[in-house]
């Protein structure tokens, strides 16, 4: 799926991006990888319950895309979002505490893996109904324009979500009203176990934007610098001209749909998955940096050690965090509570 790297865009991005940020992007990719590996382990140990969707293989999309943002920009995404939350600045310990269902979780243990929220960091969830959050992103972009702010909303979803009505309703309104939002399709080729060829009448997802006269681009989602460059253009368009863009980032998930789905299963072969793993986005990015003399094996190992340590500390933080108290059960159902919802915390 991944196309050969374009040396031009790599050169441009390496030249235009501060070295510290380039190295930080590598670190974030490593953190995302180690964190998700740890999540798989914690799921097997039943520390994490419910549905748990891992991001391994897709790191270049979230990290490349969010590397273009300002801190006050907003991110809203679906349920494969642990790494999005980390990259948006959520504390790794509080994210892990959320996955553990603990009180210090970013959503106080009430959201879990699929509902990570952090208002201060501009992380607006974590949504579990496919396509359900696309209108929400359209709404935050509407609000930015209404309030005459130049913040941009990034909205992530899988390629399977482009077949649901909310996608079309949202793109139509965003184009009609010229809203500052970037819709990012993380096309990992499978909606659960259904390949895109079996679910979409059009293979090129980006073409869907034509129906709404919206700017669109397709990008190699395994190449973090290609993602950064492409999303950077879209973010600029949103911020400067208040115009939306649809980006299709072609990527691949190395794990099953969720923890209850084996890595290959009935819908793809082991050979296919192993072949895709040769295009590992972290490996590719490291090679770009090495070729440019910006990183070496020692640095990679140092960053990896840090990522493992931060992940380990996150687990320890989550372990130490108490479960929510029974008194919190009725809290936050209403902002202006009544009757049973006014119970004070026990």
């Amino acid at each position, binding site marked *: 799926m991944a196309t050969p790297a374009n040396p031009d865009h790599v050169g441009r991005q390496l030249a235009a991006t501060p070295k510290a940020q380039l190295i930080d992007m590598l670190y974030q990719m490593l953190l995302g990888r180690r964190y998700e590996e740890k999540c798989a382990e914690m799921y097997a140990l039943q520390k994490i319950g419910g549905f748990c969707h891992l991001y391994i293989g897709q790191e270049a999309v979230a990290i490349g895309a969010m590397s273009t943002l300002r801190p006050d920009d907003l991110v809203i995404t679906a349920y494969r979002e642990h790494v999005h939350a980390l990259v948006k600045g959520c504390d790794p310990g509080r994210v892990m505490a959320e996955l553990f269902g603990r009180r210090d979780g970013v959503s106080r243990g009430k959201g879990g893996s699929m509902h990570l929220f952090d208002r201060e960091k501009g992380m607006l969830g974590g949504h*579990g109904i496919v396509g359900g959050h696309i*209108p929400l992103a359209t709404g935050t972009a509407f*609000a930015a324009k209404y*309030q005459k702010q130049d913040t941009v909303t990034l909205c992530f979803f899988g390629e399977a979500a482009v077949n649901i009505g909310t996608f079309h309703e949202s793109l139509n309104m965003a184009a009609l009203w010229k809203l500052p939002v970037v819709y990012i399709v993380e096309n990992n080729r499978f909606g659960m176990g259904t390949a895109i060829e079996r679910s979409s009448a059009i293979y090129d997802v980006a073409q869907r934007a034509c129906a709404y006269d919206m700017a669109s681009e397709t990008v190699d989602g395994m190449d973090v610098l290609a993602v950064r460059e492409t999303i950077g253009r879209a973010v600029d368009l949103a911020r400067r001209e208040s115009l939306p863009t649809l980006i299709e980032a072609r990527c691949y998930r190395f794990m099953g749909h969720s923890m209850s789905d084996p890595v290959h299963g009935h819908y793809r072969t082991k050979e296919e998955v192993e072949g895709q793993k040769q295009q590992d986005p972290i490996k590719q990015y490291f090679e770009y940096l090495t070729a440019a003399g910006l990183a070496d094996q020692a640095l990679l190992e140092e960053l990896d050690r840090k990522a493992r340590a931060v992940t380990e500390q996150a687990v320890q933080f989550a372990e130490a965090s108490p479960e929510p108290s029974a008194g919190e059960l009725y809290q*936050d*159902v209403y*902002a202006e509570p009544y*009757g049973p919802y006014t119970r004070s915390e026990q």
Partner: protein
Amino acid sequence: MAVITYRDALNQALREELRRDPNVFLMGEEVGVYQGAYKVSKGLLQEFGPQRIVDTPITEEGFAGVGVGAAMAGLRPIIEMMTWNFSLVAIDQIVNGAAKMLYMSGGQFRIPIVFRGPGGAAHQLAAQHSQSLEAWYASVPGLKVVAPATPYDAKGLLKSAIRDDDPVIFMEGETLYGSKGEVPDEEYTVPIGVTDVKRPGTDATVVAWSKMVTVALKAAETLAADGISVEVIDPRTLRPLDEGPILESVRKTNRCVILEEGWPYAGVGAQIAFQLQQAAFGDLDAPIARVTGLDVPMPYAKNLEHMVMPSPARLIAAVRDVLYLD
């Protein structure tokens, strides 16, 4: 005090709250240039402009979600459903979005939004345009559900709903828009979650809301001529339900009929009856009765539609029944 229509009372509430808070905006189909499918938003585009009175495509789920997203970002949207029947294509945004955001974000994202529009049957609009869906929404924790019967309540409650920090389902009565009543000249609000006595009485309690209050008052008038004194209680808000005044009334009359335009199965009246038998079992001299819309999709034919709709005659029969009069 001026006598105005229910429609104009709602219009006044919208206008006053739009003036009061620049974060309030109205969005929906035909709310602007067309001046509202039922003219509730008449004149608002002219006063507030297209940025705040936003005409949408026919895209209910989309604009319901735009409203929820805008609320997450700090605005106070009023989302008009041309009728509540159309909300069924937007229900994911209302139930999975608006109602749950505060809870599943651990208290971080309030959704101060009002979804409003007409509900219930009008005249021969048939199965898809004649539904009373309050029981659907009232069953969802995180939502508040309001269904006013009079111009006074409509204006006062809509103002409260717009100022409320939770998502409010505001159900207007489609056939009430032209009804008239007294509305104070000075500003006022009616709090959400406060039951009102619409007619005092001593022999039997009738609980009714929205346009069923009109049916109840007509029946009460007829029964009064026979020397039967009916107390008509209007909860006005179905979630949260202010149970106190209903209980107080039932403890006085010892008999209760619950009147509801919607279907009987799992209706709001079923919930109220449950709560009453829990709290006032010993005070009841007869089983609680319910008069509801009949348990069928709404037929088009006029005679069949009349059979489905709760009428003063059916209510009178039920009241006489709980009084063991026939």
